[in-house]
């Protein structure tokens, strides 16, 4: 306890620095993955993608990131075993942050597709299981989380498959695709607004003091959905059939209408990504702050400070603006086959899955979820050619990241324990 009293302030500051560092890493690396389908389908320009990412990553992080942050903060570890020496929790969380952050840097340097979520969860489980004791880990929760890592790409694949099928049936396969596009796309826009609002309002806003009943949330979400739909209809009025382009490729004008829809879907994806991945950076920070502020008490019920989410959101935006825009720039120059109608199906499916996971407090990998969603569209025969070798590389990075994060975290944990006693 005295360690905490002595070094409490340093610990909080160090935690904030490491947390910001990790959030920066997420912004520099991961956001490009989330915006990949939007830029790759040429529905958004690079500038638009960055602006959308800045606004909505921050919004998602602050408004909807609470539940996942709570899981990472205290859901994975059972603090009872550390009641005698709470400083161990502080060392461990700092070690986890450092470990995950460094692994992220290494992966960026070598160009490996690693998941920020897997890194931090692996690191936390690592230091707890090895550094403290195997009983310190809430294995039931961990099992649930690992299960969600398998379920989320599959779910996203299902949703994208049926979304794309609906687009085919209602618009692409009909005699008048352009007319039907203008008719049905507004409903899809409504869907985007409704889903994101619904999950945010029912699950996420308690930390800013907004307590809403289910019906209230539903009504507000419907209103938001309709509002966004009206904006979308205004934007789509300007699109007319371009005869010359349509001769080359019959669906050129239809895809322009889908471009409007893609804009809203990109916002939803950025929001979803922010809501799920901010926790990777600030969950540990919240844990450390919680322990220090309670003077060493490891009470489960301590409320989560909202400024921690703010720190995460700012960190992500900082990473995006300083480095991430370069990464987004290298994407999507050669993709001629990814059109907005497909990009929309994959992105909305992924965004929905991630946002629901954020609402239920499950930390999942947005990258893997997107991969699942893209495969779903491929299975609906909507894509020309998918390179399955990439899926293989992602699986390998999965298997490497968990132990790598764990080992690094264990190293740093014992280092801190040695340094501070």
């Amino acid at each position: 306890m005295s360690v905490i009293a002595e070094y409490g302030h340093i610990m909080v500051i160090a935690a904030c620095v490491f947390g910001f560092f990790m959030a920066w890493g997420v912004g520099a690396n991961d956001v490009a993955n989330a915006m990949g389908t939007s830029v790759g389908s040429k529905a958004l320009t690079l500038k638009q993608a960055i602006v959308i990412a800045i606004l909505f990553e921050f919004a998602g992080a602050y408004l909807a990131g609470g539940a996942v942050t709570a899981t990472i903060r205290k859901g994975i570890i059972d603090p009872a075993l550390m009641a005698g020496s709470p400083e161990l929790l502080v060392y461990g969380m700092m070690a986890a942050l450092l470990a995950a952050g460094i692994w992220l840097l290494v992966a960026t340097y070598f160009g490996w597709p690693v998941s920020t979520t897997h890194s931090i969860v692996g690191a936390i489980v690592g230091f707890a299981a090895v550094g403290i004791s195997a009983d310190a880990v809430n294995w039931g929760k961990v099992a649930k989380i690992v299960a969600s890592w398998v379920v989320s790409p599959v779910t996203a694949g299902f949703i994208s498959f049926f979304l794309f099928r609906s687009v085919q049936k209602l618009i692409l396969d009909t005699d008048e695709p352009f007319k039907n596009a203008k008719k049905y796309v507004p409903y899809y826009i409504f869907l985007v607004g409704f889903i994101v609002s619904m999950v945010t309002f029912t699950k996420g806003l308690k930390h800013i003091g907004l307590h809403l009943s289910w019906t209230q949330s539903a009504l507000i979400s419907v209103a938001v959905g309709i509002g966004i739909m009206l904006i979308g209809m205004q934007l789509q009025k300007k699109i007319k059939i371009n005869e010359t382009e349509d001769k080359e490729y019959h669906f050129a004008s239809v895809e322009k209408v889908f471009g409007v829809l893609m804009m809203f879907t990109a916002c939803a994806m950025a929001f979803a990504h922010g809501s799920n991945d901010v926790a990777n950076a600030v969950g540990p920070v919240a844990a450390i702050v919680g322990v220090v502020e309670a003077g060493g008490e490891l009470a489960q019920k301590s409320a989560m400070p909202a400024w921690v989410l703010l720190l995460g959101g700012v960190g992500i935006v900082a990473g995006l603006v300083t480095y991430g825009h370069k990464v987004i720039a290298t994407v999507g120059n050669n993709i001629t086959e990814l059109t907005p109608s497909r990009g929309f199906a994959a992105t909305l499916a992924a965004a929905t899955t991630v946002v629901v996971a954020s609402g239920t407090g499950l930390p999942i990998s947005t990258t893997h979820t997107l991969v699942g969603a893209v495969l779903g569209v491929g299975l609906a025969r909507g894509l020309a050619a998918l390179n399955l070798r990439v899926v293989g590389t992602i699986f390998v990075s999965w298997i490497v990241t968990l132990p790598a994060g764990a080992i690094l975290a264990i190293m740093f944990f014992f280092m801190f324990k040695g340094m501070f006693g």
Partner: protein
Amino acid sequence: MVTNNPILQMFARSPFKPMQEHIAKAQACASQLIPFFEAVIARDWDKAREIQQQIAVLEGEADAMKKDVRQHLPNSLFLPVPRSDLLDLLRMQDKIANRAKDIAGLMIGRQMEIPAVLQEQMKQLVTAALATSEQALTALNELDELISTGFSGHEVNTVEKMINTLDDLEHQTDEIERELRHALFQVEKELHPVDVMFLYNIINWIGDLADRAQQVGSRLQLLLAR
């Protein structure tokens, strides 16, 4: 395309556009047969030789394109249609160009003259065969639209109609071929026997052009089967 983004690394180079370009090249090669036959009938052997060279060059370019498509179709690629069906289609497209080269090559090699009574029908046969291969090209140009609709719905009906037209054109070519062979049969006793055999050969090969175009259509139909 070197990108770090694993999502975008998933989108591999599509083989469909290169396949459309390949059949366009094959058709360009085969359509040279019309000026070729005009030159042969006019007995302008220099011009005929020139066109034959051109046909050979175009056939070589088509071959290069075919190899390129094959090199970029690894087994790890996930396609909306079976990979083997696609490769079969490609092979059949290429055979159109091959046949055109064979025809021109043989006729130049033997300085083959076409008997006056048969010239008109011969021209008709070549035109009909090329109309058939042109129709195959039209049907294949719908490939990217087919992918957009995920090989279902309205677009499939459109393409199936095109394939039916293709079949009809091949029948017509068959008819003309039969009539031409009959006409040759009437006059074969007056001609040198070896020349006659090779004439029958050429007639056969021109019919082959239409035949192969029709087979391209049937391969395409396999992709559409639902």
